[in-house]
């Protein structure tokens, strides 16, 4: 884990909780446990339509908007990458209004 790179403020919930919640969401929807580093959409993995469900889930749960260059499957390939994306998007730079 690289929690040292992100300042731990009271407003940003713990990365571990985020990872745990996502793994729980995936297991709940697929009936299979996943590792944080598994390629979810590789051979025999999940469908593109499920990927979109995951995007919508992240947006609703963490009040983020995944837009533009961020909206690409590579950012959702593993739970770890999703955690990175959510963590980046929920602390936007000041004045960065988009969408």
């Amino acid at each position, binding site marked *: 884990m690289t929690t040292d790179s992100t300042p731990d403020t009271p407003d940003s919930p713990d990365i571990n909780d985020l990872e745990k919640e996502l793994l729980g969401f995936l297991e709940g929807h697929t009936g299979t446990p996943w590792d944080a580093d598994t390629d979810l959409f590789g051979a*025999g993995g999940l*469908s*593109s*339509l499920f990927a*979109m469900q995951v995007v919508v889930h992240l947006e609703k749960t963490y009040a983020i908007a995944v837009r533009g260059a961020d*909206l*690409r*499957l590579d950012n*959702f390939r593993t739970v770890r990458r999703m955690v990175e994306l959510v963590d980046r998007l929920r602390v936007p730079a000041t004045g960065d209004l988009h969408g």
Partner: protein
Amino acid sequence: MTTDPYEEPPTPHALTVLGAGVMGVGITALALGHGLPVHLVDVDQDRLDRAGDRIDSEFRLAELMGALPAGTPLGTLVTGTSPKAAAAATAVIEAVTESAATKAAVLSEVSALVRPGTLLVTNTSSIPVDELAGAVERPEELVGTHFMNPPYLIGTAEVVRGARTGDPAMAAVRSLLGALRRRAVVVRDAPGFVTSRILHPMINDAARVVQEGTATAEDVDALMQGCLGHPTGPLRTADLIGIDNLVDSLRVMHERTGDDGCRPSELLLRLVREGRLGRKSGRGFYDYT
């Protein structure tokens, strides 16, 4: 250049799509994403009001999967309740409910509005094109397509040449599918053509297996995916097609072939009665909420 835009369309293709259901919206998103202008028509104004948001969701999925050509500006979308817009179209794609009577009525109306020589496409999963050709003014202009859902993620489309379909219409549909970057596989006319004739009875059997308690939907799909290489599993596919549409399509084939494998299973009928229509209603064999 001061030519009348209605005489000389600014792009080689300008579509009118009839029906803002799952396939009408998906085909519209595919076309807009490839820079083609679309006039989307539905009799239900509420449905048209929601179409913009639904098309945006389709674009997001297409974007996520990198399915649209980079650097192509989106085509412009206009919506309306009147099919009169078809008069300015280079091609009309009918994507209304999978009922021969409904499709025939809509095609008959629109064929009286279009300029002669305009490509008429019926998007159907099962109804023989030549049955519908009887309803239009110039049967040689009508071609069948069977786009899969979602059309922008599936690179191949089944194209159906009816007994009366003319060569110019076949050339026009190839050109249109080329502009949409879809590969066309042309087949002869028959109930269910190729894909539905094979896939739908299989899905029907998958539902029977669940109905009889042999296995759960999850296990049926896991076996078909894991052992037989089916990409999504038959029951997840059923949810993607829409169970109501699947039942309509099975009935069309059952009525025309007498094949009992096409008689909709009790479980499919029950799901439709309960409003569990698949992804579009949030629930079918699986829960998407």
